[in-house]
């Protein structure tokens, strides 16, 4: 017992790194990627957390198309071409909510104290979590598009158009997630984060052009629907998928992305740094 204790002491002393041999702490990009890697490891260890990005999108796509298809457009076949790009956007941005909820759970654990005591760029912890989520979004998006294809969705824009739309949506999801990080830092429990997020999400997705053409809505609502970032994204995505990519609508989405990150990113960090 005594000898093993001595052995261990000696061993530990022998593995201490002298101060001059330590590397410089990783930079902003590599720290963000490392936190992204952590998110992927968590998916590897807890694959159940992919439930929301696999089963949920299938359910949404099938349900909305068949329930609303006949009522809104007269036939499911005609509706699919219009609806799939909308469902694609809606499902993806609903999944972004889980980013905030996961983060809320994560931050309340001791490991975040450790991360915050490291000499790395602090936003990397949040950026990395959002980067890891991109993998989830890609999985979810692929599933939606495949299910759509099976249901008869044939985008005119071909593979190129779909891929461009996909990239644009990933960028928008990343930007939108900063709203959820703010909420997750402000509330105490996951349930509260979920409740507030839903409260924002419902009008954002339904008061949009996802399901129906806004022309059928009262004029005061049409105004709101037009500035709703979700409508802007849906329009751009529909155009890209239809092979009629429009520089103007894509630029508008990029501006929305910049505003979301520019406002909610710093606000997130403000609360993150003051989290006790």
């Amino acid at each position, binding site marked *: 017992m005594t000898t093993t204790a001595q052995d261990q002491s000696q061993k530990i002393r022998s593995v201490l790194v002298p101060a001059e041999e*330590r590397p410089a702490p990783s930079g902003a990009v590599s720290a963000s990627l490392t936190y992204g890697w952590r998110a992927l490891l968590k998916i590897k260890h807890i694959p159940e957390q992919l439930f929301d990005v696999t089963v949920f999108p299938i359910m949404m796509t099938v349900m909305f198309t068949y329930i609303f298809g006949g009522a809104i457009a007269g036939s499911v076949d005609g509706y699919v071409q219009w609806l799939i790009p909308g469902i694609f956007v809606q499902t993806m941005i609903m999944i972004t909510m889980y980013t905030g909820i996961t983060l809320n759970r994560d931050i309340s654990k001791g490991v975040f104290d450790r991360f915050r005591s490291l000499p790395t760029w602090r936003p990397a912890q949040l950026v990395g979590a959002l980067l890891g989520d991109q993998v989830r979004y890609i999985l979810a998006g692929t599933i939606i598009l495949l299910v759509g294809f099976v249901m008869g969705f044939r985008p005119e824009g071909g593979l190129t158009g779909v891929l461009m739309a996909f990239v644009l949506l990933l960028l928008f999801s990343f930007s939108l997630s900063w709203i959820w990080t703010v909420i997750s830092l402000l509330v105490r429990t996951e349930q509260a984060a979920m409740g507030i997020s839903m409260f924002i999400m419902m009008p954002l997705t339904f008061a949009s052009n996802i399901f129906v053409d806004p022309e059928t809505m009262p004029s005061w609502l049409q105004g709101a629907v037009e500035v709703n970032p979700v409508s802007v994204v849906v329009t751009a995505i529909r155009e890209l998928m239809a092979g009629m990519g429009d520089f103007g609508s894509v630029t508008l989405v990029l501006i929305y992305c910049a505003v979301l990150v520019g406002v909610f990113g710093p606000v997130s960090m403000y609360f993150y740094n003051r989290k006790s």
Partner: protein
Amino acid sequence: MSAPAIETRGLVKRFGNTAAVDEIDLHIPQGGIYGVLGPNGAGKTTAIRMLATLLRPDAGEARVLGHDVFTEPKAIREKIALTGQFASLDEDLTGIENLMLLGRLLGYSSRDAKVRGTTLLDAFGLTDAATRQVKKYSGGMRRRLDIAGSLIVTPQLMFLDEPTTGIDPRSRNQVWDIIRTLVAGGTTILLTTQHLEEADQLADRIAVIDTGKVIAEGTPGQLKAQVGTGALKVRVADPARREEAAEILGRTLMTEVLRESDSAALTVRLEDESRAASALIALQDSGLAVETFALGQPSLDEVFLALTGHKTAHEPAEGDAPAAQEEAA
């Protein structure tokens, strides 16, 4: 590097109307172990979190290794390591993944981080558990991995928040050995604990804190001199003869004898442990049958009783609220 490890003046942190840390002044030189002793909710964790730049003080000044906590937090973070009260590890990841994660963040390449992590796991006797998720670790294993995570690069100053809370005695001794090894390697350690014995075993100097204030400071020797070196606990076989025993103890030791709620038990706070032998002889000479005659270190309760005149019956203060939440979860 002659800057003190820690220097604070009038450090304050409030949560609502309660001051979790209430004007604390500390001067801790580099080298050795500094112990912060206090009950749950005394403000120990809050103080550490401010010094580790996790929490912004509401008032006062604090410099860590010569750097201001308000204006140079990053310089501080480059030189410190923190091992929290609840393992600062990602429970979903394996041991090696945790160390690789920290290694990469501290600037190692993926490959070097793995080599470094493997080396540390070996040194801490965790090689067999390398690919197991941390949530399946025992308390002692977690602690060791947690400390290993703080040693990826050697910190100049290491914060250990109650490093032995909730682990078994054997693991506790291992952790103590590790702490001593680190100090011998030149790291300064700030350790919080609820146990006088731990502070006495490890620390060169101790600050006793209660409700956010430092109520005593000194070497373990000075502190124990204030409190009495130890407590003599005597239990007589026949409760009816307790008064007789109390009288004999009071006479031979020339100090106050406390009557415990147990009707056969007595406690005497000793200034000088060597006199205990004469008390035992005196009891024997009088023909009193003694069941227990034990010399022990004063408990935290007794330390507080001696220093403040009140026991440590605090509600967990808001200062340790994150901890309380964690316990509830």
